[in-house]
């Protein structure tokens, strides 16, 4: 019996792993639209960009002499580089059942869009030299060319796990010990109870992490385009609800959704975080750019230079 379950899980994992290359491709394509260099620290340090020439003082390493500059005058000069440091970013993608929703056959599911966004961010950041890791994977943040692949595989593996289990844990970001001043990016529909979310965010904010929330929603979840006698069913065991005239509650629903959004924004602001929304029928590049602009904005922890 156990073997059978294991075999099934393996099969599903393989099935999901098959989806990795196209996801990666989409992520790479989107990430390539954003150009961002390594963050210069505007001071001398280890780095690759030229910062200044400084006169040689005894005690300086001789191999750092810039001979060409020195030959121009009587003094000796050293070449100094700008110190560039990479940020550490943790990504999390909601893999719960509610994400596997697509209102129309020609729309991607929220999960697919969220995965693409996650991977695209990971790709963009690793290309920019940042260290990236998947939240809750237990791996150390790494930089380099192969980060994107490993994250993609990790994500596919987790998605396989999430699909085969009905566990609720996938709808709330896990709490792991994060290094201070790390950046956290959460991609989800954030439809889980806001108290749980608040608890999780506060835990992150407690370690002085900065973060950004990307809410992924289906157009049907925005507009409730249904009419007539409809039985709405929850996907994570919330129960069901019979509406005899679904068109009558549309306005109320929109208001409720707006309230939810406000609550989410408030939640983020209280922790000093930001939030953006992505609808699955929009281009992913736009939302990605938004998130990236937030990352690129100069609110990195400058106080700890």
């Amino acid at each position, binding site marked *: 019996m156990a073997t059978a379950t294991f075999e099934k899980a393996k099969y599903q994992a393989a099935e999901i792993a098959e989806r990795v290359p196209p996801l990666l491709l989409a992520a790479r394509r989107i990430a390539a639209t954003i150009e961002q260099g390594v963050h210069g620290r505007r001071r001398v340090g280890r780095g690759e960009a030229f910062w200044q020439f400084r006169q040689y003082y005894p005690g300086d390493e001789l191999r750092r002499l810039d001979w060409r500059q020195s030959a121009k005058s009587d003094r000796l000069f050293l070449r100094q580089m700008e110190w560039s440091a990479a940020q550490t970013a943790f990504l999390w993608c909601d893999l719960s059942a509610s994400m596997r929703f697509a209102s129309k056959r020609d729309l991607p599911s929220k999960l697919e869009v969220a995965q693409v966004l996650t991977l695209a961010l990971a790709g963009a950041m690793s290309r920019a030299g940042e260290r990236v890791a998947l939240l809750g994977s237990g791996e150390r943040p790494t930089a380099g060319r192969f980060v994107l692949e490993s994250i993609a595989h990790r994500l596919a593996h987790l998605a396989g796990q999430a699909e085969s289990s009905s566990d609720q844990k996938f709808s709330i970001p896990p709490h792991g010990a994060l290094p201070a001043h790390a950046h956290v990016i959460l991609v989800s529909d954030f439809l889980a109870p806001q108290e749980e979310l608040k608890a999780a965010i506060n835990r992150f904010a407690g370690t002085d992490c900065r973060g950004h929330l990307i809410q992924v929603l289906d157009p049907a979840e925005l507009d409730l385009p249904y009419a007539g006698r*409809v039985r*709405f069913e929850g996907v994570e065991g919330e129960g069901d609800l019979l509406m005899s005239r679904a068109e009558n509650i549309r306005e109320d629903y929109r208001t409720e959704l707006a309230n939810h959004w406000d609550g989410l924004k408030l939640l983020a602001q209280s922790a000093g975080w930001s939030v953006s929304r992505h609808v699955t029928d929009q281009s992913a590049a736009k939302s990605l750019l938004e998130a990236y602009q937030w990352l690129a904005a100069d609110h990195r922890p400058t106080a700890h230079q």
Partner: protein
Amino acid sequence: MLTLGSLTFAAPWLLAALAVLPILWWLLRLTPPSPRRISFPPIRLLFLLRPKEETPHRTPWWLILLRLFIAALVIAGLAQPLWNANFGFPRGGPVMIVLDDGWAAAHGWEQRKEAASALIDRAERNGRQVILATTAPQASAPSFGLTPMPAATAATQLAAMEPSPWPTDRAAAAARLDKANLPSDLNIFWLSDGIGSQKSDIDAAFSDTLQAHGSLDVMSLKLDLPLMLLPPERDPNGLWVKVARTQIGAAQPVRLRALDRDGRTLGISQGTFRADERVARIKLDLPVELANRASRIALENAASAGSVTLLDDGGGRKPIGLVTDNPALSRQPMLGEIYFVERALAPNHEVRADRLQTLLKQELAVIVLTDNSIFAEGDRAALRQWVERGGMVVRFAGEKLSSEPTDDLLPVRLRPGDRTLGGALSWTEPAHLAPFPNSSPFAGLQIPKDVAIERQVLAEPDIDLGNKTWARLTDGTPLVTGERMGNGFSVLFHVGSTADWSNLPISGLFVEMLDRLVMTASGIVANADENRPLAPAQTLNAFGQLTPPIASAVAIVAKNLSTTKAGPQHPPGFYGPDNQHRALNLAPSQPVFAPLTVPARQLAADRTLELAPSLFLVAFLLLIADMLIALALRGLLRRRGALATTTAAAVALCLLTAPQPSDAQQLPDQDILAATETTHLAFVRTGVPQVDATSKAGLYGLTQTLLRRTSVDVGDPVAIDVEADELSFYPFLYWPITAGQRTPSAAAIGKLNKYLAVGGMIFFDTADQNLIGMSGGDMGPGAQRLMELTPGLDVPRLMAIPPDHVLTKSFYLLRDFPGRWIGGTVWVEVPRGRVNDGVSGILVGSNDYAAAWATDELGQPLFPVTPGGERQREMAYRFGVNIVMYALTGNYKSDQVHVPAILERLGQ
């Protein structure tokens, strides 16, 4: 039974169920449709909402109405509604239906049958019995007689009834009725054919007889009576056909179609009845040759025995004998002596090729002798007698006739030798034909410009040579001479019957000339015995179609044919042996062709329409619609998806019912072009992958060798499937024999035979010399397999290749023929004279040649040769080159011209 106007309900009490409909309405309103089910992740947000108003959802009123309508339809259908139910009969006794079933009834037979069947239905509803009576004479009395029977039995009897191809005999029918002891309270319906009997008082008497037994209702197709064709008249201007009609007063166009024996249309003529004309004379607009071939003339848009007139076999097809001792040899395409003659004559005439002795025993109009026709002195005398009795002998010149022109069966005396016009050693040009003289049978034929004579035999000058000359060249020399000999003709073409001496035999003129000659011939020379019985060969049915003779038809003595009346023993049709059919027509047995004088009403089937099936069908369709609506309301039909599904289903249905296109085997033009633009070596695909790969590589290697060493420009090798592919594009087929190969079908064998007959070449490679070498036998397993594979293949006698065979010198001079193995014998056909120029169509080897030739793309050999050495492989290639040269050039190298050079090379 409930009747409302034309509508009747057979089971009206079921209509009470309509009272249930209001209850149904109430029930339907109570049960709302089940809701759509939608998975919706943000359902927590919905839990927070309170709906504004919770009106109970009801089924829409129009849906309830639809469902009620369906229920009403079903109830109405169950009540068995009938439209136009005509009840009752005037008298209390059984119903009698008198059906005219002579030839004239074939016109509108379906309407008559329908009316009769409606009457039987009505009788069944009224519980009456039915009597069926017919008026045309029959060979045997019908099984149902004149007795009352249940309506159901009568309906089956009626369904089996057919009209007869001869006229009715109402006098005899009246006599039968009188004898039958019928009750006097019958309800009689006479479905008449509308044509009067030979004497008008017969019809009145018949009507009186019927009336004596009960009420009489006479029905007839009043305005649409059949036409009748009278026997045609021949006069010098052509064939005149007479058409008779029964009613006058309006002009009426008619169209006639002339058909030959095989039912092919020869021509169509149009004519018109003038308003006051009872008989129209229409000329058949056909050339004489075509008119002679006409075997029957039919009225268009009419289907009765009277609308067809049959013609005796006569001027058209004639039996023609071609004298040959070896039909297979002389029929050889393009080369055989009788090939072109047979091709020219066979479409229009019956051609037999046989020995003279055999032919002289048959009835023939023309005998054709070619140059090589051999006959003994006795036969010559017999032939001369035959000609004098009225036969025509047509001879063709040739080498033999020009060398010894001592023959008394010629129209003119010939000079020994012949003259050659044009050619390499002559200043003269090939001669053309002069216009035919008016006295010639060929007068008026168009002479194509490109007919040229290169060689001919010459006649000795004579006083009456000019009169005997039927065709001459532009320089005046006779080309065709003919002479009356007794009652017959002797004709000589001064050229051969093949394309060697002139291109006349391959021109269209040749066909026309032979046709004219056959028309000139007086006909079949045989003594006709006027007392011989003529057995029925084909008879007409009442609808004017020729069928095998009916069972009751018996033979007619020849001299009585013209006086015989059509009837059950002698239905109209063809009588007599094949090719000498004599026609018995219907028209003489109907000398009076007039309308019925008894007053009749227009025939009309008062058909009762059962409405129940249509009601049920509509209800069923509406039920499907209701189901779709219910699904749509529950949201189970996505709008776009549903549309696509419905369309796909409809299209699939159309495709299923549409006739499948026949997969005619036609090669696309591109494939034909590709196969013929360059020469390709081809191998037979065996289905064994290794063998096929080896064959392909082998032919590839050989192709490369050919391109490198010779001027032969060959394309890539081609794999051939003998079952499916066209073979005639490939001059040479390599066929490796394997155990795993499927035996070709009979059709494929036929195709291969045809391929060989037209000069194809197949090289069978048994590839088993290594095994023979081990077992020491003469024949390996491959040869056994070859025999199994090719049953029915036309393989002539084979022999081991002689040392002086053309294959040994067609390009390289070779002594032995190694392949991958050595020592195997190559077998070729024993030369059969001029068949295929003595070129062997079949070669059999056993040395696995393809393996020796096989190279990869870079020219590296793929298989080692055994015992080995590059010399062996080189010799294998040389043999391959020789084979291809042999396939392409035939016996060219066996020509004596090359002998000195070859001898010198051989050092002899």
